[in-house]
């Protein structure tokens, strides 16, 4: 019973706070670049505006194009039920482990890529092909990084991983350090942040993720943007689960949930600062240099796994 309440609470937090987190990142970025920001709550106003607008649909749009926004939103919400943010006592986490989580993100990406090609515009197809190129390199690296942590905790269930790392306390291990660096690189690539993709770009030729969703409008666009914000939020929550699950409530401790919520918000604030420092310090990479960037992520993850076997 407790688990179901926590589960619902978690999903509500994910849906409710994700736009505020994106707003926080954008606000920090404005400050870092010496611009006036639109405030932390601008993403909510943007979403409200998009929901109130009509949809413009191409004549040749198929069901895939109309179905994809709902699928994207749905998979991310479902993923929010798997990643322990407040408590490790999650009923869904027992049925789905971290491989399922990667699979959920892959489904959303697959359908977004299909819908990018569905209308038949040049930019959509270009965006899809680029997105799949990035995905084909990022996904093995991500699984490798997660497997390193799983090996250490002897489980692929996220709840179990969080519990093991939390009870072990802070133990410096080379394998965890490598996996963490790899995870940061992959999180940048998966969420389309600088240096892989620029989320704020208006130049179609340099777009990756934005090019796929150029044709969307109205509530479809709102759902996709919202799903993107939630995905960023989820990656922060996932890295917190895998590498620094401090403050999270255990299975036998439902009273720890408010503390966990405060800890989560603190972690989000700090991660926002780190993300903005990375994004302001780097320039967007050339597309063909991405293989080296993601190759480095794969190398880090593999070194993490190897140092688990060799050094620990």
């Amino acid at each position, binding site marked *: 019973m407790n688990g179901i309440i926590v589960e619902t609470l978690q999903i509500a937090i994910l849906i409710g706070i994700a736009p505020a987190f994106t707003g926080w990142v954008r606000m920090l970025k404005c400050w870092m670049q010496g611009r006036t920001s639109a405030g932390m709550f601008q993403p909510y106003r943007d979403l409200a505006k998009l929901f109130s607008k009509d949809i413009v649909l191409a004549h040749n749009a198929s069901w895939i194009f109309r179905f994809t926004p709902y699928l994207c939103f749905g998979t991310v919400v479902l993923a929010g039920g798997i990643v322990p943010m407040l408590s490790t006592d999650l009923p869904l986490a027992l049925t789905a482990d971290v491989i399922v989580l990667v699979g959920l993100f892959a489904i959303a990406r697959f359908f977004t890529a299909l819908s990018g090609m569905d209308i038949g515009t040049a930019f959509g197809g270009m965006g899809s092909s680029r997105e799949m190129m990035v995905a084909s390199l990022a996904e093995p690296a991500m699984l490798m990084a997660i497997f390193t942590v799983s090996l250490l905790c002897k489980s692929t269930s996220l709840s179990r991983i969080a519990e093991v790392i939390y009870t072990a306390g802070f133990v410096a291990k080379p394998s965890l350090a490598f996996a963490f660096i790899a995870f940061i690189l992959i999180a940048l690539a998966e969420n389309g942040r600088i240096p892989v993709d620029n989320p704020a770009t208006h130049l179609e030729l340099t777009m990756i993720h934005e090019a796929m969703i150029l044709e969307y409008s109205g509530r479809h666009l709102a759902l996709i943007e919202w799903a993107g914000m939630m995905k960023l939020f989820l990656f922060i929550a996932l890295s917190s689960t895998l590498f620094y699950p401090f403050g999270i409530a255990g299975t036998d401790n439902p009273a720890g949930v408010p503390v966990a919520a405060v800890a989560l918000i603190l972690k989000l604030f700090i991660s926002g600062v780190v993300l903005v420092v990375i994004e302001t310090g780097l320039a967007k990479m050339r597309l063909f240099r991405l293989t080296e960037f993601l190759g480095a992520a794969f190398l880090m993850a593999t070194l993490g796994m*190897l*140092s688990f076997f060799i*050094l620990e």
Partner: protein
Amino acid sequence: MNIQTASQINGFLAAFVLLTAFGMLAQKRIYSLIHLFTWQGLFLSINTAIVGYVANKHHLYISSILTLSLKVFLLPYILHALIVRLNIRKEVETVVNIPATMLIGIALVIFSYHLTAPVTELSTLITRSTIAVALATVMIGLLMMITRRHAVTQIIGFLAMENGLFFAATSATYGMPLVVELGVALDVLIAAFIFGIFFFHIHTTFDSLDVEQMARLKEEDYTE
């Protein structure tokens, strides 16, 4: 500092040495290569000092200081001066592309882990787990010498190999006798000077340090 923390720090430094080895494998710019080589020397020197402290072997302090002065200050300085004198600016060319080289590097790490597994089981030293990393560093240095065309990069690969050997000696037997280590250090220093002289000769003869040039005979100079 107890044995537990020492072995943890030792593990971390071994991981950093491996990381710098891979960094050198992936790096295209010659200045960054020298910086990475300097970092590797620094990690190696700190590691030697820590092993010396834990194992209570005082001659390891001397070899740590030797490593610090030679591989962190003197050799990078010589290489730097060489590059400035020979005016080498362009990016290093590789024979195999970089992601493929890194994959080969990973395979080499797995191979050396497999190779040293029996040795590790027999050993009782706290540094036994880093033997595999040391062997991998040697092999990655060798790989770097094979995959690079530029003479200076090949020398850096050679020096990285020597780093790996030194690391292997520290982790497998708490270092070689001091006489041997002094001899090796002197050898490396002399080698660096000889390489320098050779570079000047190659540069004046071929107008480039690309070793591919040496595969061709230059007959047109002797036609008269």
